[in-house]
């Protein structure tokens, strides 16, 4: 159990770094110049990259930070965090599915760092599923 949460904590740290990178790219606009190899610039400059004025990458960073915090609390035996942890990861997974859909069919550009985030969230979901099963 603790090992699983440790894995989750490490994964969420990776996700946090990834989302922070995307947030910084978004805010400073460094990559938002158009280049022959497109990708993150097209995705980050799209209207889907902002929700209610907040860069989506920043929301992602906050979510990873929350997952990390909950995983750490779970490792130290705080009760009642595992439910919250699972719900959060499931929501993040569903949002990631939606974002992949947007990249594939609406923006028609893939952003490798956004895909990395989706991969990390999927791994977190696997952790949640193993966790649920081992508890039974």
């Amino acid at each position, binding site marked *: 159990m603790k090992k699983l949460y440790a894995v989750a904590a490490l994964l969420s*740290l990776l996700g946090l770094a990834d989302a922070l990178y995307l947030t910084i790219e978004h805010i400073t606009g460094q990559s938002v110049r158009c280049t022959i190899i497109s990708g993150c610039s097209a995705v980050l400059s799209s209207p889907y990259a902002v929700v209610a004025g907040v860069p989506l990458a920043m929301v992602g960073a906050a979510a990873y930070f929350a997952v990390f915090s909950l995983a750490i609390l779970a490792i130290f035996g705080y009760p009642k965090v595992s439910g919250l942890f699972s719900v959060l990861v499931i929501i993040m997974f569903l949002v990631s599915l939606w974002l992949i859909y947007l990249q594939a069919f609406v923006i028609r550009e893939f952003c490798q760092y956004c895909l990395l985030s989706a991969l990390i969230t999927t791994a977190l979901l696997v952790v949640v599923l193993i966790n649920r099963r081992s508890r039974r």
Partner: protein
Amino acid sequence: MKRTIPFLIILAVLGAALGSAWYLTRTIPASPVTPIAPTSSTAQGSPVAQQKPPAVQGVPGAEPAHTLGPANAPVRIEEFGDFECPPCGIFHPILEQMREEFGDKLQITFREFPLVPTHQHALAAASAAEAAGLQGKFWEMHDLLYEHQNDWKKEFDVRPIYEGYAKQIGLDIDRYKRDMNGDLVAQRIFADGKRGHSLGVKGTPTVFMNGREVPFENLPAEKLRVVIQNEMRSSGK
């Protein structure tokens, strides 16, 4: 004690995340090209007084180039642009604003740099602007293409839309249609692209000021204004 350890870890990660975010997004000084003001002991315009990278030359682009403003302006801006590129569309009104503010002190040159595999209509847009240029209406078409970027970039066939613009600015439509696909237009775009490549242009908008590249992060109006002012000061006009 044990109960505070997780919170310390969480706080440490939060601190590291916010710290690195702050460090990487802190405002970049408005101008890395800030010239060292010539001191009284060094003669004006001496090479010592100007600690700037040397201006780049590159191969010539299409001739005559599309320019606005006097050729002897103290600040000459050369933009490599792609009409379909959103940041170029954002940069267009900024450059207009600078022209209003600085008037005759500024000369603007536009170079075609259509990013063909990325932007499906960029080449057609560049051709439309160049075809209009052959009838002396390059800037009129340039403005319409940028201002209506969102109207045409998602369309499947942009040619009728561009023809509408051509009519709007009073072009001879038959000649415009011929020129769109003509050699002269293709050669001009190719020449500008060649110049871009020789200057190391990788994306759009890429802006050169008196032969030196202006970093992309200095292109927002409030930063570009400072960069232009510094350039005017250093050229002594």
